[in-house]
């Protein structure tokens, strides 16, 4: 009797300790990319749709090669923005590739177009530069590389819609002054250096005032010849 009681008590103890061990296992983090990129969501949105902050860009739908190049450049310090440099500093290439693929595949809705706060004539100049460029000043159209629908082009050229005007103009300024760089030949440095301050304001405002594209997919790789050589978009 005593022996049986002890045996029962022992097995209860074993069972309880097993149950407790199970409790300790607890809930795991979801094994998804969505959960892994929560670190990005506060600024870029859970699906890369962007936020109200003017300087945190939309990521969704940009070509994976472009996003990957930016992640590497932030990690290694060639593109400088300390909060991004810090977050990516110890992440390996293969994982950055997965993060790029995740955001490239997202298709959240575009934000409503913003009402431009610039004169109509300047806005028209912006539309002209985006669609036709300015041949007299050797400025190619944005659409010549970024696609007729401005959704970007595989593998390395980003889409230009769904971004805030402040972000676009800050990037054009950074390209011009060389604080943002690309692999040589650095075509965006060339183009941005030919734009006047008014041109930058005009282009940025027109892009931000444009509605999202009907089809957000980037143009296929190699489908158009670029008007100038770009190190980040091998031909």
């Amino acid at each position, binding site marked *: 009797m005593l022996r049986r009681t002890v045996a029962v008590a022992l097995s209860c103890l074993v069972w309880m300790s097993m149950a407790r061990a199970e409790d300790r296992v*607890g809930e795991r*983090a979801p094994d998804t990319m969505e959960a892994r990129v929560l*670190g990005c969501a506060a600024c870029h949105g859970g699906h890369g749709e962007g936020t109200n902050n003017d300087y945190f860009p939309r990521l969704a739908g940009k070509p994976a090669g472009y996003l990957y190049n930016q992640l590497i450049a932030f990690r290694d310090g*060639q593109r400088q923005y300390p*909060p991004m*440099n810090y977050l990516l500093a*110890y*992440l390996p290439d293969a*994982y950055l590739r997965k993060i790029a693929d995740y955001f490239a595949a997202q298709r959240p809705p575009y934000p409503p177009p913003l009402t431009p706060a610039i004169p109509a004539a300047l806005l028209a100049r912006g539309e002209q530069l985006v669609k036709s460029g300015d041949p007299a000043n050797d400025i190619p159209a944005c659409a010549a590389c970024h696609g007729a629908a401005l959704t970007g082009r595989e593998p390395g050229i980003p889409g230009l819609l769904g971004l805030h005007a402040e972000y676009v103009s800050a990037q054009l300024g950074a390209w011009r002054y060389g604080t943002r760089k690309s692999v040589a030949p650095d075509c965006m440095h060339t183009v941005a250096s030919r734009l006047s301050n008014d041109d930058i304001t005009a282009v940025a405002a027109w892009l931000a005032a444009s509605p999202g594209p009907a089809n957000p997919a980037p143009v296929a790789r190699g489908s158009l010849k670029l008007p100038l050589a770009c190190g980040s978009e091998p031909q």
Partner: protein
Amino acid sequence: MTEYPVSAFFLFLRHRLTSLYAPFVLAASCTVAFAQGPSPTAADTVKRGEYLARAGDCIACHTKPGDKLFSGGRPMPTPFGTLYSPNITPDNETGIGQWSADEFYSMMHTGRSRDGALLYPAMPFGAYTKVTRADSDAIFAYLKSVPPVRQPNRPHELRFPYNNRQLLIGWRTLYFHEGEYQPDPTRSVEWNRGAYLVDGLGHCSMCHTAINALGGSSESTAFEGGLIPMQDWYAPSLTSNKEAGLGDWTISDIADLLQKGVSRRGAVYGPMAEVVYDSLQYLSDDDVRAMAVYLKSLPQHGGATSGSNGNVSREERGLLFTLGGKIYQAQCASCHGKSGEGKLPDFPPLANNQSIQMTSAVNPIRMVLNGGYAPGTARNPMPYGMPPFAQSLTDDEVAAVVTYIRTAWGNRGAPVSAKEANALRSAALY
């Protein structure tokens, strides 16, 4: 008790070199080698040197991110000015191409360069002096095997009087004790191996021992923790259970933290993430376990008091706790759990997490402001990330939520003020 390395000075450096074999371990492996056949080939030595260079984390200081391996030139800001790490590739003119193994060992062992110049203790020679000759030779053989890079060393930019290397004589008298690691015969082979790695190549005490105004660290406070100058991260005490003292950790949790970067007790971020990413993830299971065994054995004492109100009044503490609880449930609980239990190991626990409760609130405040990713490692190649809240929470809200996690669920940290939160908004991130 083994002797602790007295290293530091410019602490924020994080190198880690290798592990020495305690002589009797060496003897054992030699026996095995003889039993198996010929002595190690040059290729074996280079391979072992590469492993040891990982253990010493040479790459962290001697390679700029994205630049050529070991070409140096990485700026290291210090309270005394900026140092630039030298080129240690085998280039004949700008690297160590003309060095001999004797000269390399002498530098590692004595902290004097080939030309006799005293090294600044940003180079952790106070720890590397413990490295055996055989391991030093293997590291040297490996460094000689990497592609040479022609890149002249950039001169240091130290302010007067720190630009006078003769001052280092005094510093060395106070803080440098030359000598290879001497195994403690009363301890196990594993423990001695761990001590050799932690105190030697690992140079852990560079950050985990506080430095004083002279930029030195005292043996009497070895591993008691300290703020890392210029980086504004707090390297916790390894000897206090109230901080990162490992007395009540399991060996596997310690090993996971070191090698994988995440564990069931917490994860590494900031400077320690760099150490795991560049160095510890490459170490063998046996070596990481040996380090864990040694670290767990460090004497546990004192450490920081907690449970006080810090600079915050009792009323303010109550208000912060109430507001912090609301923010926590809205912003944090979905990952860290309603009661701070986390989702282990990827979403770290906050309840009973020592790094949340330490006297210094620098690390938890920084994590709330800037978020962070655990390092991507062989055993955790796709880490999860904490979002930054700097742009969405005010200083008061940051202080409130950090106060909440430091004092809820039985945690015994002190509350923090909005001023403390604000001060870290301008801390260097990168």
